[in-house]
């Protein structure tokens, strides 16, 4: 199938210009000192040292990874059921469900997040309903709960889509065969359906985890500012303090950490697939 390889050439050329060149500029900022307008060549590793020598930055980074991880796990758990449900629907209904799930993401994220502020507010809808049944106002807005809720809300459609994609058009004969051989529903799911959907889960993780680590808008609005994540730090370096060098360095550090964790995830995926193949 070598003739199909050529099909990647245009994209390779494209990413070289549109992704790699800008990334080189960012890299240059990260390893040089001062100067936004013109890149000058005073190489330094100060920006990296500055990040690692301060416990607060490490704390922020750890918190971001933790929040992103919780969000990702919740998205998988809560997203798998709808994805499975949709994949089992008849063809005509499938598409409608997919649209129902994606539709909310077409409304501006900021508008939806503002709506959550109103809903979660101390005198918002949820607390009003809770008040009717006699439960006093529960503090929801400006807590970690609100931040994670906002993140899950924002990212779960992507997870559902990815898992659904890998579940649909799955070979049902495999499951039937397993059932014929006496496997119960749980075994069927765990040994056959889940491993087969794993590639979808992995791209779902990529689509949720990566942007979740660096998100800055949701923690800012729903976390009330004191919930600082690494995305906020990077954003403020670029947009308020104008320290592009430090901002670039932090984003590189983050990119490297994420690449390593994605590499590990891929490894897990491969061993799973390997097992399946050898089984």
């Amino acid at each position, binding site marked *: 199938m070598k003739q199909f390889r050529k099909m990647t050439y245009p994209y390779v050329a494209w990413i070289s210009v549109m992704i790699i060149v800008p990334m080189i500029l960012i890299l240059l900022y990260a390893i040089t000192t001062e100067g936004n307008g013109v890149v000058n060549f005073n190489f330094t590793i100060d920006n990296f040292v500055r990040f690692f020598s301060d416990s607060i930055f490490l704390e922020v980074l750890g918190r971001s990874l933790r929040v992103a991880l919780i969000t990702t796990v919740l998205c998988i758990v809560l997203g798998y059921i709808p994805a499975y449900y949709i994949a089992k629907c008849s063809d005509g209904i499938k598409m409608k469900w997919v649209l129902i799930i994606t539709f909310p993401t077409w409304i501006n994220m900021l508008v939806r997040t503002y709506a959550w502020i109103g809903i979660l507010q101390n005198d918002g809808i949820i607390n009003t309903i809770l008040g009717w049944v006699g439960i006093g106002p529960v503090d929801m807005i400006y807590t970690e709960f609100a931040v994670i809720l906002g993140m899950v809300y924002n990212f779960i459609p992507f997870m559902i889509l990815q898992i659904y994609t890998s579940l649909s058009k799955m070979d049902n004969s495999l499951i039937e065969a397993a059932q014929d051989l006496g496997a119960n529903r749980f075994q069927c799911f765990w040994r056959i359906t889940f491993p087969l959907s794993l590639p979808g889960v992995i791209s779902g993780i990529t689509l949720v985890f990566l942007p979740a680590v660096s998100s800055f808008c949701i923690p800012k609005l729903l976390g009330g500012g*004191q919930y600082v994540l690494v995305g906020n730090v990077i954003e403020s370096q670029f947009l*308020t*303090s104008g320290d592009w060098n430090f901002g670039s360095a932090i984003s590189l550090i983050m990119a490297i950490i994420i690449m390593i964790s994605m590499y590990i995830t891929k490894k897990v995926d491969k061993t799973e697939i390997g097992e399946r193949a050898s089984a």
Partner: protein
Amino acid sequence: MKGFAKKAAALLLALVMVMGLAACSKESGSTGDGANAGAESSDKKEFDSKTLKIFLPGAYMEDSLVPAFEKEYGVKVIVENFDSNEMMYTKLSAGDSYDVLIPSDYMIERLMKEDALQPIDKSVITNLSNLADQTKNLVYDPDNTYSVPYFWGNVGLVYNKNNVPKEEIEAKGYDILKDTKYKGHIYMYDSERDGFMIAFKQLGYSCNTDNEAEINAAYEWLVELNKTMDPVYVTDEVIDAMANGQKDIAIVYSGDAAYVLSENPNMGYCAPNCGTNKWFDAMVIPKNAENPKLANEFINYMLRNDVCEKNTMEVGYTSANKAVLDKMIAEDGEYADNEAYYPRTYDKDEVFRDNESLRKKLSELWIKVKAAK
């Protein structure tokens, strides 16, 4: 499903084409209008081109002012908005060209230092005399060589008069933010500049200090506040939140406070005795402006009494125009009883100055303040 996909694709394509056409025809239509109108009044003035590009904060100008200017001068105005001075600076330094900008004082000072502005043409801007005395000859631009004030105000505390006694807030100033009685009931403004200004002022320093010990003292002050008071850091959400009385005390810009007070009669405004920040947003013309002549005309237009009046009535910020200002605060004026609308003249109030290294330092410390648990 395949059939569906095909049909959807066909429909989408049709939609794009229709919309694209609409966009194009709209564009050519409006420039056409501009040209026609220009022909009618071409004897009035000759400009380098018929387009003026202005760049200002979002929702910072009354809607009808630009169309009226377009009609009167037979030109087309492109309005772009920014979200913070720094965002504007980033776009500007990447080479984007605009004719009129409306940044804040310290940003104007920075642009002046970097030689990014051109002097205004005082022979065109004859309405310069309309300016109120408080907004003339400011410290960063002593002769108004480069900048013409647009809106101005200060920073202060908006408080719920039912829960916070006026005497207490006046006596304590910004220290009330550390009174544990109000724990969990305060909004801080999420900006390193304003956050540190509060601490500097309360501790009796200048808000432009770069003295290491004073910065540290302010940092400790803010960290303690963060730890003991459980504040919520917000930016413009504070306006709606305070208008609805969500919390008792908040740091608010006077212009926004004027809106809050007019919406919610329970709210009061107090600029503390320890002094506060006084700010000015002003119109400037960048060096790389493509149409400086028209830019000067626009600035002159924005200083007209009728224009200023409309603008301040809609936006709610304090006008820099003397006649309008007097009218607004006169007994039967729109803002007669509004304590936030008219900024006081007080020798402890300061304007922010541009200081790049200080800015970077404060920005890093501000993250630490908020992250400290």
